[in-house]
């Protein structure tokens, strides 16, 4: 044995080809995603199929007017163009997929395979983004980030089970961030503008981008500064012109914007996203209950949050009503420390954190936030998670909690083991990866200076973190098993409420942690 290993050790290390290794990660994930094709899919599947039909069967001028199905097109034009591109292939495979009427609720194998595989393929964009961001890092860091992003359980749950194209869109975001980190601001701005024309929800980070680009790119003397501002503005306008131009030409901008921003929806989604408003609602309920006990006359709210009905109003009994404007101001307020920092020290290494922080603010204080929006900050944060031990600890908690908060998306029994296994595997890999990363650095430091005694401790989460994570287990057990046994069918909303409240604690912690980091830096 010894004789065999010796030549191995003496051999010079092979030149590493990170792109090939990254392909391996992607291919392994794709195999599992292919296996998941027959699993549960939400109505979003039919939404996207219908969009294929709209963009294929109708002229562009009709896209935002069509009302054949309740699933009207409500994404910006680039996404519609993307669907148009996909529909060409869909038409080749099975014309019924793109038929406006006959295709409604079409559920044959062809449409299932086509759409599922199109998501897997569109993940190539994510692959490219990750590659650009990690190509200069060392091997262990690279692999860790790949595990966190390419094997993200959240993306599997949202994109490949629930059905959406988030991997593709987040890929564009990562590409934009990679350009900014490299100092190629113009390209970064351009790609971000493209992203905004794919999905407008990403606009939450626009203030950060604006401030950063203004300071880092344009702030170079008066004449040069204005010239650069002009170029930047021209590029952004050009991108928007490509996207919205045809609709401006048809005079439909009002309709397009009306479709994209349906403010008729309520403050919270049918499931509560684990954000700040959860506490607000609960405080309202508690106050209403207490005041009612004290003899005050409390008007019962018109629509209940817990019934899952999306009402027009925010029915609070005691606390002041929340309007979209309130949430908008709150998000901007929460963002302001980050904007000030970006203004003062616009440094490319910070931009990923700032953008992630912006999406965290949007998630916590935004109007009608989906729980899926957690992806918008969990995925970019993965890039910085390997930078320090504190980052790793924070990310471990955040990623576990965010993944758990997606559990209600898959509510059928068949997918139960899948989501649990995905979360467990993810946590296990994170734990192994982070402890390898940080144990390794210590050993290298020790090797450098043997006398150095003040060694940092390895990857330890601490008892608060552990008890919080164990709490997730308890919440899950009580919601899934104890609740049906004790209460039966009564109060069916309690488990969901409990888990969103519990997860909201985790996201609030992450928000505060990120804010503190930004203020300290």
């Amino acid at each position, binding site marked *: *044995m*010894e004789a065999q*290993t010796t*030549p*191995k*050790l*003496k*051999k010079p*290390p*092979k030149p*590493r080809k990170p792109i090939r*290794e990254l392909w*391996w990660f992607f*291919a*392994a994930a794709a*195999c*599992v995603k*292919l*296996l*998941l*094709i*027959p*699993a549960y899919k939400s109505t979003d599947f039919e939404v996207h199929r219908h969009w294929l039909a709209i963009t294929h069967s109708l002229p562009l001028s009709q896209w935002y007017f069509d009302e054949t199905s309740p699933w009207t097109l409500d994404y910006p034009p680039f996404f519609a163009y993307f669907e148009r591109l996909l529909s060409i292939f869909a038409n080749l495979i099975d014309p019924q997929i793109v038929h406006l009427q006959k295709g409604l609720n079409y559920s044959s194998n062809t449409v299932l395979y086509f759409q599922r595989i199109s998501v897997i393929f569109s993940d190539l964009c994510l692959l490219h983004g990750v590659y650009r961001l990690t190509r200069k890092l*060392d*091997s*262990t860091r690279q*692999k*860790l980030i790949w595990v966190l992003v390419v094997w993200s359980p959240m993306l599997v749950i949202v994109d490949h089970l629930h059905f959406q194209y988030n991997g593709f869109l987040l890929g564009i975001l990562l590409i934009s961030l990679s350009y900014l980190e490299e100092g190629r601001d113009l390209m970064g701005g351009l790609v971000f503008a493209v992203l905004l024309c794919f999905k407008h929800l990403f606009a939450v980070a626009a203030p950060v981008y604006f401030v950063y680009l203004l300071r880092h790119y344009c702030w170079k003397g008066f004449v040069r500064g204005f010239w650069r501002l002009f170029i930047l503005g021209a590029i952004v306008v050009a991108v928007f012109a490509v996207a919205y131009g045809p609709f401006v030409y048809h005079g439909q901008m009002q309709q397009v914007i009306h479709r994209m921003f349906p403010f008729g929806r309520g403050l919270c989604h049918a499931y509560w996203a684990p954000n700040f408003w959860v506490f607000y609602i609960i405080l309202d309920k508690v106050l209403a209950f207490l005041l009612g006990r004290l003899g005050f006359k409390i008007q019962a709210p018109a629509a209940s949050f817990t019934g899952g009905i999306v009402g027009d109003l925010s029915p609070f009994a005691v606390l002041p009503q929340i309007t979209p404007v309130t949430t908008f101001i709150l998000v901007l307020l929460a963002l302001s420390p980050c904007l000030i920092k970006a203004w003062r020290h616009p440094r490319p290494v910070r931009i990923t954190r700032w953008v992630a922080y912006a999406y965290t603010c949007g998630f916590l204080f935004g109007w009608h936030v989906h729980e899926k929006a957690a992806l918008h900050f969990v995925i970019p944060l993965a890039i910085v998670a390997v930078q320090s031990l504190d980052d790793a600890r924070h990310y471990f908690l955040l990623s576990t909690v965010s993944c758990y908060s997606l559990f209600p998306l898959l509510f059928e*029994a*068949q997918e139960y*083991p*899948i989501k649990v*296994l*995905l979360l*467990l*595997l993810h946590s*296990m*890999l994170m734990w*192994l*990866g982070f*402890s*390898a*990363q940080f*144990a390794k650095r210590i*050993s290298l430091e020790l*090797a450098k200076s043997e006398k150095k005694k003040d060694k940092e401790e390895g990857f330890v989460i601490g008892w608060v973190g552990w008890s919080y994570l164990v709490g997730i287990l308890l919440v899950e057990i009580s919601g899934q098993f104890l609740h049906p046994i004790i209460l039966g069918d009564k109060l069916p909303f309690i488990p969901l409420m409990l888990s969103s409240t519990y997860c909201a604690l985790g996201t609030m912690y992450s928000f505060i942690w990120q804010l503190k980091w930004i203020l300290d830096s």
Partner: protein
Amino acid sequence: MEKATKRKVNNKKGKEEKPIVECDDESDAWWWLVHKGITASFLSIALFSLLVRVAVSLHPYSGAGNPPKYGDFEAQRHWMEITLNLPLKEWYRNSTVNDLRYWGLDYPPLTAYQSYVHGLFLRFFSPDSVALFTSRGHESYLGKLLMRWTVLSSDVLVFFPAVFYFVVVYYAGRNPSHRMSGIAWHMAIILLNPCLILIDHGHFQYNCISLGLTVGAIAFLLSDKDLVACVLYSLALNHKQMSAYFAPAFFSHLLGKCLRRQYPLLQVLKLGLVVLGTFLIVWWPYVHSMEAFLGVLSRLAPFERGIFEDYVANFWCTTSVLVKWKRLFPTQTLKLLSFGATISSCLPSMIQQIWSPSKQGFLYGLLNSAFSFYLFSFQVHEKSILLPLLPASLLATEEPFLFTWMTLYALFSMFPLLHRDKLVLPYLSLSALFILLNHLSSGRRDTKDTSAFRSFVTRVFLLCSVILHVVYLSMHAPARYPFLFEALIMLLCFSQFVFLTLYTNAKQWMLLKHSNLVDKEKKLL
């Protein structure tokens, strides 16, 4: 653990080599996954394998929505229904309540007990799915889910721990510098065996139990706990009579071992008593009357089903293209013929083990005896390739090429069956996953200079099988020969299997030469 071993190596070799070792450490792509030791690596690999299994179980099972007889899924469900609702003595007996022609129980009693336990689980959540008579052909969302979960839980409870124990034992005596990532790779390759996953979690069977018991037996044998090994192997035999494929290897290795001890006869007697005792316990309800015992026994040997079924890549089926065995000879003669062929083909491997029992030789012996049963025994199924594949996967680090080759062709030989079950998608993605895993090892291993001829031949065969896949999926066979493609696949796989058997038999005998050399060297020293 890896860290510690690295340091040991460093200390041995002095300081000047340290940077090289660090480099090596750096280039080991999977260091981060395995650095916490064998248990943590096993846990993460097991979680991933379980995820793959659950994902495969989303797909259809054999005979889904295909009345009146359905498939193996219905057979297993029916056994739960029978064992749950009838008294023990009636399980194997044809009666008005137990129609043996409709998926009558034809596995040994341990399977029946397992069906009973799983039946209890099903009845608790969905009584309709196992009700007597009315549940025939029961197909429902919940029913399918519960059935799938019984296989998943059996896998986790039997196969996974057995594999873990095997890997611990197998690498315990090795040089400590054996790379941890290599061990992890071995675990992954055993647990992610595409054939086993497809048959158990796709097609629907409980091979994980009998194979898991066998792996457990092998592991105990390797750690010299022969009595426990005997118990476990007897249990495996009592779960599926197909486990007898391994019997010659177990028998010859244990016999060889006993002969080398002080009181050979006593040793043999001890093992024999343990085996007999295990059998007695399992068969207890049926040993009180000769009639009941023979009744069960006759159910286990379905000779009336002919020497082969469908298109299995073994000797009888392949040669029947030229020699019509079924027409030429009566069943009785065929039985003798196949028995003789099987025994004579596994005799060399048995003799080697009796003569010079060794742990490595035992694993090769398992492979050889399972192969000879697969190729020559009576009534072989496509699925039986799982049995030779098991020892091959246990030898995967010794014989990486053999294992890869065999897995690919074992998969291919089951392709028509899986195609019938509508499992082409999991078939393709599991094959891809297997190739990816394999790619890891070849990236890690030093590239041995393989001869140009061998790589040419393997490429030609691979090309053939890829073309056959495409043809099978895209074209209809000519009306005159409706099973032309199946026959071609069978022919290709058979040729590979024969080649592999010859190779492994030769390899087993080469071990003898090698050990003789080692012995001689020791004497000289």
